[in-house]
């Protein structure tokens, strides 16, 4: 028996390897707009842990800026939308492994990410920020020394702060999603949270008295719809779609509904 153990292990490991490589019928391998329409549904990855841009509503369905944009995608494609919850860390793997047709999930447009996926034209304005209670004296990244700074793993705040952790003595803590990071701030488990421009409004509503405010704007961002590289047909359609909803007032209505702000002029590329 003993002599055979390595063989058994080898088989066990091969099974794991085999399971992960074998082609489980990819659920969202549609490459073109026609294929999506023919399948009869569009599969969209959305974040459901971030106030304003995506939460789970009381009816169990995703609600927020991004889910509403996704619903417009479905409306203009003429097919129902199937939502798949994604996080900052797993949205890219979900896209690359054909689990979703596109990701509409606070996806900040950067050249690094564009090495892996394609972005549509921007459909939203945001920024990577650091938020803390008013009493916390933080004005620059230098003031973060010794503080516990919570960020959603893989989000822009994580990527921007990670290179400075050692030099600035930041205690950077990465949470699996934004909701847990925000909860940690409310619980007092972290001092500063990496989030967006408007989330402090939600924080102040849920935890009144602390007067949460945006302390530092790390980088202004624009969100784009992420698709797999090489899907030129889908990209062209999405850009036309973004152009349309920007100019017919539908995106402005979404912005006013969730951000209580009119839509800013968005750049194009």
């Amino acid at each position, binding site marked *: 028996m003993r002599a055979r153990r390595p063989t058994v*292990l080898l088989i*066990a*490991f091969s099974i*794991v*390897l085999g399971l*992960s*490589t074998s*082609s489980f019928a990819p659920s969202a391998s549609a490459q073109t707009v026609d294929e999506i329409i023919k399948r009869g549904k569009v599969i969209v990855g959305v974040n459901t842990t971030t106030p304003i841009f995506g939460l789970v509503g009381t009816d169990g369905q995703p609600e927020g800026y991004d889910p509403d944009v996704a619903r417009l995608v479905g409306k203009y494609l003429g097919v129902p939308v199937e939502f798949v919850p994604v996080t*900052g*860390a*797993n949205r*890219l*793997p979900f896209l*690359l*492994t054909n689990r979703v047709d596109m990701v509409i999930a606070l996806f900040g447009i950067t050249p690094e990410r564009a090495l*892996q996926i394609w972005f549509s034209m921007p459909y939203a304005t945001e920024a990577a920020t650091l938020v803390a209670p008013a009493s916390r004296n933080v004005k620059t990244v230098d003031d973060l020394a010794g503080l516990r700074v*919570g960020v959603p*793993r*893989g989000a822009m705040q*994580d*990527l921007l702060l990670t290179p400075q952790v050692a030099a600035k003595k930041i205690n950077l*803590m*990465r*949470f*699996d*999603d934004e909701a*847990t990071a925000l*909860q*940690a701030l409310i*619980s*007092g*488990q972290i001092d500063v949270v990496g989030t967006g421009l408007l989330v402090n409004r939600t924080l102040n509503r849920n935890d009144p008295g602390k007067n949460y405010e945006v302390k530092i704007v790390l980088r202004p961002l624009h969100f784009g719809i992420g698709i797999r590289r090489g899907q030129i047909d889908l990209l062209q359609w999405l850009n036309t779609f973004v152009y349309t909803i920007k100019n017919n007032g539908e995106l402005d209505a979404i912005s006013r509904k969730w951000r209580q702000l009119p839509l800013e002029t968005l750049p194009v590329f």
Partner: protein
Amino acid sequence: MDYVFQFGVVWREIDALLLGAWLTLRLSALAMALGLIVGVAGALARASRYRAARALARAYVEAIRNTPFLVQVLLVYLGLPTIGIRLTPDQAALLAMVINLGAYTTEIVRAGIKAVPPGQIQAGIALGLSRWQLFRFVVCLPALRAVFPALGSQFILVMLASSVVSVISAEELTAVADTIVARNFRSFEVYLIVTGLYLAMCLAFQATFAAIHRALFARWSG
């Protein structure tokens, strides 16, 4: 499949992965040691002659075994600060693991104690053993020996379950892997290596358990 493997970018991060694995190992080993103590205490409480102790142990076991580990982790990390108990992510993870493992171990050890024949205890009393000797040699060791395989697999399970503590920002192996994936998007390569690391850690623990089994129960050549 037209996926191009790029292990190079992942090997650059191997130090971080090993550091994560080290935390997983430490958390697991500590949770196993403390969880066993909690489990033995819980099993004794369940066999206690005092009704309150029995009820308390029973409530603990039922509460923990019938709720998800993830919820327990979140409760310890995000819930306890409300009553003034503030733990770092690593401490919270360890506490949640000990509480969780303790409940399962209680039931396993209790089964072992039940398997000790009453005649054996009576023989011990007849031989004039002290209460401590009776507990140690006549009840505890034979009970642990009887349930050793079940304990071993429960211990392995808690190590594997430790992967969910990444949610409260404890930087164990899975958390490190997630972070690396978020940076270089090489999920396939990273998780493949992580799978291998978990497998290696499981085997290391199993070998340790076997060694402990030999050391503890050598006199019973069973």
